[in-house]
């Protein structure tokens, strides 16, 4: 008796579920259409309520409701986009198809609990992104422009280089005219700093 009430409840849930979900969610699973499932769950629930779960019709009702509930829920999947992705895959455009598939489940993904903390947010291991492959026209253009920039930069850096090198600078600074000690060929000792901040 209790079992009958329980399964009547389950049947009502299944019936409600079948009633409120979009029709394309049913066809995607390649099962029966929405009106058929609504009718089946309604009939099954009525059978359980009338005859109890442990009866010939009741058991059929319980099985029908459980089959409905255990079927994969296709809600949130844009079936039109899945078909489009299928066409793109057949046409060999894998990357585009992957993108379309990703978009087709956007609504379903939206219903998932988003990743938090250090969760990876993905359950599927994909392949690494393939390398660049042979150089394309764009690559050659960008590479060529880069080479020109490199050459221009090196050229300008040379053009703007300091007028004197270190040896010339040192000679110039150690000549008596500047007033520094002419004997210091090597750098002068900084001991002449009056503070002498050595420990």
């Amino acid at each position, binding site marked *: 008796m209790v079992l009958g009430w329980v399964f009547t409840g389950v049947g009502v849930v299944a019936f409600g579920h079948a009633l409120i979900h979009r029709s394309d969610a049913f066809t995607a699973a390649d099962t029966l259409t929405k009106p058929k499932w609504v009718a089946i769950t309604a009939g099954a629930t009525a059978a359980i309520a009338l005859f109890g779960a442990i009866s010939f019709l009741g058991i059929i009702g319980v099985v029908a409701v459980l089959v409905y509930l255990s079927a994969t829920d296709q809600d949130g999947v844009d079936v039109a986009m899945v078909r489009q992705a299928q066409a793109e895959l057949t046409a060999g455009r894998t*990357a585009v198809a992957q*993108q379309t598939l990703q978009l087709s489940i956007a609504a379903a993904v939206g219903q998932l609990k*988003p*990743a*938090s*903390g*250090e*969760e*990876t*947010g*993905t359950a*599927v*291991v*994909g*392949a*690494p*992104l393939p*390398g*660049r492959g042979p150089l394309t026209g*764009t*690559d050659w253009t*960008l*590479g060529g*422009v*880069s*080479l*020109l*920039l*490199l*050459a221009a*930069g*090196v050229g*300008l*850096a040379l053009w*703007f280089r*300091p*007028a*004197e090198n*270190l040896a010339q*600078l*040192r000679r*110039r*600074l*150690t000549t008596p005219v*500047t*007033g*520094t*000690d002419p004997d210091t060929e090597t*750098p002068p*000792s*900084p*001991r*002449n*700093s*009056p*503070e*002498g*901040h*050595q*420990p």
Partner: protein
Amino acid sequence: MTRTEERPAVARPSRTRRALDVVDERLGIRALEYPVPEHANKLAWSLGGVTAAALAILIVTGIFLVQFYNPVPEAANQSVRYLVTQVWGGRFVRGVHFWSAQAMYVTAALHMLRVFLTGSYKRPREANWLVGVAMFGLVTLAIFTGTVLKWDQEGFEALGHNLEIGKLLGGVGFWFSPTFAGNVPILIRLYSAHVVFIPGLIVVLATLHALLVKRHKISPHPALPSEGPGDQAPAAEPTEPFTHHLRRISSFGLALLGGIGVLAVLFPPGLGARPVQGIEVTEPPVTFWWLYSLENFFGLPAIVYAELVFFGLLVIVPFVDRSPERFWRRRPVAMTMLTLFLVAIVVLTILLKFLPAKSHLGAGG
């Protein structure tokens, strides 16, 4: 009043000059023409500027990448794939961003090496050395967060290591805990750090860095006589306007951009598979190999200690080495320490290739 009287005597300046005058009157750009000693224009003394050029490239390409990147864990890896395969020039811009980051790390390290070799961190420039060390730390953080953002196996494992480090640090590592803001994926928080806090802090510190260089003036070349007190270049050294320094840095920057562009075309950065929790199969970027070798020897906590020692050594440099001597040949102790430091990093980096791969995550350190 006197201007009107003088005007007829002066030859009429060129159109560009007059246009510049108009701008200068409003914005004071001529203030940039202050004199700097000639040795500042040498390549070794321009490396800080080249690092700034790399930062500029990173910011511009970063603005482009942000338009296409989705920091939600479910979509992050896919959004990078989309950028690389579907957006025109996406692969190239991502490559330029990647290679500029490597370049910035290298030029910043070389700049620090130059500053060390010429004793430019010495009085009165100790504080500016610390600002530089802080920026180097931020660049390391930026490279790390950037690695995680692509959300492939390698990035995810890098994150795993750092989460464990966060745990080891106890209360100090609170930000690096996935439970600190449990409702937000840690990827989004790292993203905000990568595109806002870290570059923002680098720009602020770089400004301070440049202002302090202007305040203390460029340090004297150790091979040239110096003024002694205050350690300024001698007044007799020829000077050039600072705008010429900017011009030379821009030239180097242009060459850097070109070189990076070639690298981006020929060797675009890869992207691994979407991450799986609980496995450890990848290797970190080469800049972190020395840490990884230590980790293989001593377990995961070695990363914390090694980073503390690394940055600790950099921080204490100007406080331990207080001798005013700047010429490298008269600083045997400093040069020996530097050599040991560099050899240790290089040896540990190479060692990784000869050590068996080990798992570190979840081993409790």
